[in-house]
């Protein structure tokens, strides 16, 4: 039986982890490579890096991080943040990323998704959707949540599936950072409408939230702070999901 995945996400800026886990035995708490290794040793089903480097001159730092991580972690590695073109995707894959997530570039030009999924295969193309509720619908935001595209998130999700995305990473901007749980209504609407796997993101504060995320139809749940701050270990999260009859890899 296919297991539901738990994916810890690390924010990386200028090659360093922002708000990372703070374990006593860590030699360098800001080193994304070492943190990723802790997660993969701890049973993470995949690792996700979100590059939030703002300035262009430091953008190359992520390639070095990915290259080093892929030599130490033998679980899938997804990298996103600032991916603009097929060439960016090519570079990340060559450094050892297994999947690349595309956000703003996919909204601006779906050809990036079409071309890259044809070139590299759908299995490595994740489209990240940042959605915010507006009245009865959800709208897609770009540029790290700063710009409202006005595009309907449900229609967009379907369009990305048709364009060749292998997975969708759906983040609720209303919930992100609130620790009040995923936007279950949004997840249900999107997962029931498309046939590719969805990774739920944004809002996890407790282990029950992970359970709710899976029960809303998501194939995987992504979380950052509950793991960073050591509130829960990956293994505790998995044990808890298993106790609620959710299939996980233990």
């Amino acid at each position, binding site marked *: *039986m296919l297991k539901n995945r738990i994916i810890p996400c690390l924010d990386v800026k200028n090659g360093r982890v922002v708000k990372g886990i703070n374990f006593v035995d860590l030699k360098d708490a800001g080193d994304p490579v070492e943190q990723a290794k802790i997660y993969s040793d701890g049973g993470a089903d995949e690792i996700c890096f979100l590059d939030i480097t703002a300035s262009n001159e430091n953008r190359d730092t992520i390639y070095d991080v990915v290259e080093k991580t892929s030599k130490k972690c033998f*679980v899938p590695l997804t990298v996103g943040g600032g991916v603009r073109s097929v060439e960016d995707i090519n570079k990340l894959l060559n450094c050892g990323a297994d999947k690349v997530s595309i956000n703003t570039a996919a909204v601006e030009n779906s050809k990036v998704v079409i071309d890259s999924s044809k070139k*590299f295969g*759908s*299995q490595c193309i994740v489209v990240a959707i940042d959605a915010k509720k507006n009245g009865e619908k959800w709208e897609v935001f770009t540029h790290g949540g700063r710009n409202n595209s006005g595009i309907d998130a449900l229609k967009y999700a379907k369009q990305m599936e048709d364009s060749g995305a292998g997975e969708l990473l759906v983040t609720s901007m209303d919930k992100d950072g609130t620790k009040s749980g995923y936007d279950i209504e949004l997840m249900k609407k999107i997962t029931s409408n498309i*046939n590719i796997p969805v990774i739920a993101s944004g809002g996890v504060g407790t282990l029950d939230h992970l359970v709710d995320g899976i029960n809303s139809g998501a194939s995987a749940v992504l979380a950052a702070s509950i793991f960073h701050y050591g509130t829960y270990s990956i293994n505790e999260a998995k044990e808890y999901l298993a106790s609620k009859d959710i299939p996980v890899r233990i």
Partner: protein
Amino acid sequence: MNVTIVDYKSGNISSVINSFKEVAKDKVTIEVTSDLNKIKSSDKVVLPGQGSFKSCVDALNKIKGLTDTLNEFAINYKKPLLGICVGLQMFADVGYEETETKGLGWISGKVSKIDNQNGKYKLPHIGWNQINIVKDSKIFKDIENNSHMYFVHSYEFVPNDKKVVSATTDYSSNIVCSVEKENIFGTQFHPEKSDRIGLKIIDNFINL
């Protein structure tokens, strides 16, 4: 000993390279090449594959003499070869992804889309699934039945002769996820992304 990972420009093989190098350490030389002479002289060959069946077959055929060299290696000389993901699928006679495409024809059978049962099963089949070992395979030495492996695919290999099947996984139906036919091995899952247990499979292949 040297093991060659065939680099025929079919998507991303960095993870395959990294995992083989990790397992090989200094004992075994890992070559990454499409050089026909190097392939001919290697002890073992790994055939990775990402993207569609058609794109991988096209990429193989683009390199002059590569298919013949692989045929010679695996069929005439019967040296060990491991196909991963679409690398395994290409063992078939024919694949139906994008359009009907002729495969290598090493293990008779076809590659067709997984039945998603009207949307009941999401495709691609992405994530960790357990393997059901149905026959002893040399690459499963010290691998427990029901171990978890990492999968990413929408198409499945359906061999005519079920005796080649060494493991299946349950997704929509019992999907063939590992084959062994004499010197030819293949995994639909990604041992290079399946944590320590996956590295053990790579180790088993290297140590054949």
